């Protein structure tokens, strides 16, 4: 079996889906499901060991003949596109229905199909020019999906920010691909590690794809875009779309010769990004922003794995690099799965209550037990706790780092620091998701909206169930997924031929299964024992206070206050405070927000300065002819002065 027919089917379905989306929702759903499943099957065929699929045609687009290719590395990402693309299409039917959004729901369908199609094209393109075209289509369709709800000012602002930053990245990619074509004499892409002269292009590539991937200082568009987009869009943006940036970085760091500093830079960016990203996540009170910042952290984890692999391949090709890269690639899947799951859960909550502010929620488990449970699974997975999938990939990355340290190679020092930072990031991720889960779902409802919420329909719960099941499956049986990941690692650096699954991975899977069983048994037994002994319901203990109110509960802000104080030097909180005054005080307010610090403190001031300079320069341009003649005379004089001086020398 080859992947070709399935890819053709997927492309056809999606093309028709783009056309049919606006008019026929049912047909669209069938088409998108068929397309994504076909893409998934094609990816699985590749990952199970089929030889690389390649297709050339003399038919040319933009003067370049078509050339598509699918190998294990791109198939790994394609599988993720298939799973989340299909799940999101089903979810969108319940979350963004025509009945509520008659104007934007058809647009949502059209651009959804276009987004998946463009991602398919990115993963298949083996020609720089076509890659760029697909990349642009991808950026544009993501923009239209983010701004579906364009009546709101915030959404429009987020969309513009995304578009502007994304294009700044695309400029780098244009320079990258054009430079590559100029150097090699062809737009064809492929392994070119031997041509050492191409090494500087690595940095352009890192900039260009780093923007889309949300690597730490380049992530400025990400929080507002992911928070303001509709949740099915946030899910695919966070779970899959930023992975296209990751794909670019991994793909081209494998194909290009890496400069000497590459591994250090990527590892450093990753470790810092993981820690800083999660620091910002923990401080947020908007749960979708929290999830968005958490994506920055997870991309950091992936970058740590890739950085370790780059270092290993630069310093003698230690096996630890292979482990770390395998961890990073598995984390691409894992993050895609649990982050989509969490965004779907967040969407259900938003759908039911209409607020993204977690301190207005609470006690939702009673009305939304399914969503609460599934969100809990996602929270455990994203905190990389055993026995779920997040732990497996982080464990592989850690193992790579620990091996680098025990090997005492040149990268040992960096690996040490990265491992310690990852440990802190892990503990903060746990804190962040304990905060999100408990403030939203536990305790008592803080507002009426939360009390009157309702469980979402099967159309929304089904995709979440599928994603949660996949999270569990990767956690309990990681060995099944190893060959796929190992093949992708082998594509990245052919010297690392796909090895058998390391024995500890098998043990880890077994331990996870046993652990899951024991947990189930212990929880049931304790629940049973409590019932046997007699169970009585009472008030929550509040220092013997008899009238506890929902507003007295710990809110999101108080949950993160301790660590927000530690990290205030980077978080830069904005505090608005109205103290109660006088004998009959009016309402007092204390509001602490954590804006995007890189954007507000670095990018915005620099932008303002540039604008000011430009405005000052523009004053020279006022339309008075006399002045222009004066400029010309001044310019000529200056030039002749230069010539004279030069001649004298």
């Amino acid at each position, binding site marked *: 079996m080859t992947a070709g027919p399935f890819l053709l089917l997927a492309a056809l379905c999606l093309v028709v889906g783009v056309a049919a989306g606006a008019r026929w929702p049912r047909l669209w759903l069938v088409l998108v499901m068929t397309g994504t499943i076909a893409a998934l099957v094609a990816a699985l065929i590749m990952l199970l060991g089929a030889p690389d699929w390649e297709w050339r045609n003399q038919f040319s687009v933009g003067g370049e003949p078509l050339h598509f290719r699918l190998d294990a590395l791109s198939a790994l990402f394609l599988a993720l596109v298939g799973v989340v693309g299909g799940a999101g299409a089903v979810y969108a039917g319940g979350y963004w229905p025509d009945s509520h959004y008659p104007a934007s729901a058809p647009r949502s369908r059209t651009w959804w199909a276009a987004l998946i199609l463009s991602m398919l094209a990115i993963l298949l393109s083996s020609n720089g020019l076509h890659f760029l075209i697909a990349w642009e289509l991808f950026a544009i369709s993501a923009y239209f999906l983010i701004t579906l709800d364009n009546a709101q000012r915030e959404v429009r602002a987020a969309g513009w920010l995304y578009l502007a930053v994304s294009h700044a990245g695309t400029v780098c990619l244009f320079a990258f691909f054009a430079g590559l074509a100029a150097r090699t004499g062809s737009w064809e892409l492929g392994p070119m590690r031997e041509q050492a002269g191409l090494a500087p292009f690595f940095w352009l590539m890192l900039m260009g794809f780093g923007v889309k991937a949300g690597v730490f200082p380049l992530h400025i568009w990400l929080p507002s875009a992911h928070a303001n987009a509709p949740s099915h869009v946030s899910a695919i943006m966070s779970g899959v779309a930023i992975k296209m940036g990751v794909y670019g970085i991994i793909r081209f760091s494998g194909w290009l010769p890496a400069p000497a500093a590459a591994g250090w830079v990527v590892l450093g960016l990753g470790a810092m990004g993981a820690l800083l990203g999660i620091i910002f996540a923990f401080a947020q009170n908007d749960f979708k922003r929290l999830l968005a910042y958490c994506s920055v952290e997870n991309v950091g984890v992936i970058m740590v794995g890739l950085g370790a692999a780059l270092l290993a391949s630069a310093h003698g090709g230690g096996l630890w690099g292979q482990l770390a890269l395998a961890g990073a690639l598995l984390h691409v899947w894992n993050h895609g799965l649990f982050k989509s799951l969490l965004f779907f859960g967040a969407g259900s909550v938003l759908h039911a209550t209409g607020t993204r502010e977690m301190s207005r929620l609470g006690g939702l488990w009673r009305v939304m037990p399914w969503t609460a449970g599934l969100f809990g699974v996602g929270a455990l997975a994203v905190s990389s706790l055993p026995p779920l999938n997040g732990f497996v990939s982080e464990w592989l990355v850690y193992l790579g780092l620990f091996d680098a340290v025990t090997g005492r190679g040149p990268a040992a020092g960096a690996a040490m620091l990265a491992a310690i930072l990852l440990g802190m990031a892990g503990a903060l991720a746990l804190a962040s998701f304990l905060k999100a889960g408990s403030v939203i779902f536990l305790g008592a409802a803080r507002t009426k909206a939360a009390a009157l919420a309702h469980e979402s329909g099967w159309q929304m719960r089904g995709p979440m169930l599928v994603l949660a099941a996949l999270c569990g499956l990767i956690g309990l049986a990681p060995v099944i997924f190893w060959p796929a990941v190992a093949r992708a690692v082998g594509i990245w650096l052919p010297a690392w031929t796909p090895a058998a699954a390391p024995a500890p991975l098998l043990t880890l899977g077994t331990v996870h299964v046993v*652990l899951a069983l024991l947990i189930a048994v212990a929880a049931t037994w304790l629940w049973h024992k*409590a019932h046997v002994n007699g169970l009585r319901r009472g008030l929550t203990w509040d220092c013997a206070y008899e009238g506890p109110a929902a507003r007295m509960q710990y809110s999101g802000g108080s949950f993160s206050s301790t660590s927000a104080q530690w990290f205030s030097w980077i978080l830069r909180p904005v505090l608005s405070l109205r103290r109660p005054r006088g004998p009959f005080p009016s309402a007092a307010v204390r509001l602490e927000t954590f804006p995007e610090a890189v954007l507000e403190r670095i990018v915005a001031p620099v932008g303002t300065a540039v604008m000011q300079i430009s405005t000052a320069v523009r004053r020279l341009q006022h339309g008075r002819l006399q002045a222009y003649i004066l400029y010309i005379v001044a310019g000529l004089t200056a030039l002749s002065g230069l010539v004279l001086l030069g001649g004298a020398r």
Partner: protein
Amino acid sequence: MNLAIDLIARLAWWLLLAPLLPGVINKVKAWVGGRRGPPVLQLYYDLMRLWQKGVVLSKLASPGFVAGPAVAWVAITAAAMLVPLGPMGAALSFRGDVLLMLYLLALARFCTGWAAMETGSAFEGMGTVREVSYAVLAEAALIAAMLSLSVQTGSVALATMLDPSAGAGAVLLAAGIFTVLLAENCRVPFDDPSTHLELTMIHEAMILDHSGPPLAVILHGASVKLLLFSVLLTEAVLPMGELSPFAKMGALLAGVLTVTISVGLVESLLARFAFRRVPLLLTTAILLCLFALLVAWKGGAV
């Protein structure tokens, strides 16, 4: 058959010995304070009593309130099974089990915190926040400590990491792990287990609403965690490589006892720190472990 006996012996060590530790600590505290103090076996009596009692559940709590302690207990016990016991070795040893141990402890933290937040009580929120926030720094210290052990031995499996002597950085490492032990187990100077003022507690504040069997499970889990850290500290620092099995067992027991008594002495002689001073102490622990790591790294190279 051997496997079953080994497993039973191991479980007996971890589960039956653990409640002794808080008893010893309390005895030491009483002795320093010139009191007679509760019997050493007090926690056993408490656990048995609690196991028989009924449960009062907050009106707001979901089933997670009871499931949380169960999961935490399983996670802590599983983490303990990964720690080698002197001559017995570990129940299961594989490359990277040290990370599994750390993350199982994290799972326990998540579940205890989740159960605490179930009730919507601000006190429990306070305790949870402190617990998870301090864990951020403690986690960094632990990873640094584990890295220094694996640098010394060139291994990433607990059984071999903890086996030989710890070398030059042992004092630094011991001080670092001991500080983390105090923080992770909520002892003075981070938390005062004997106070009854909700505002100043961490662990005790988290379990205010628990009663009956779930409370018993939490208390027992906490004591297993304390034993786990004591064993870890002892084996990381004591050079037990070439001793005979009996001497090893004796050394392990003596080490655990020393650690326990030290905890008791610290609690008697030190007051609880103000919460804003806690990060300083934990940063010190991180630095201690980091320096131990650097000594191990450079020491091996010279």
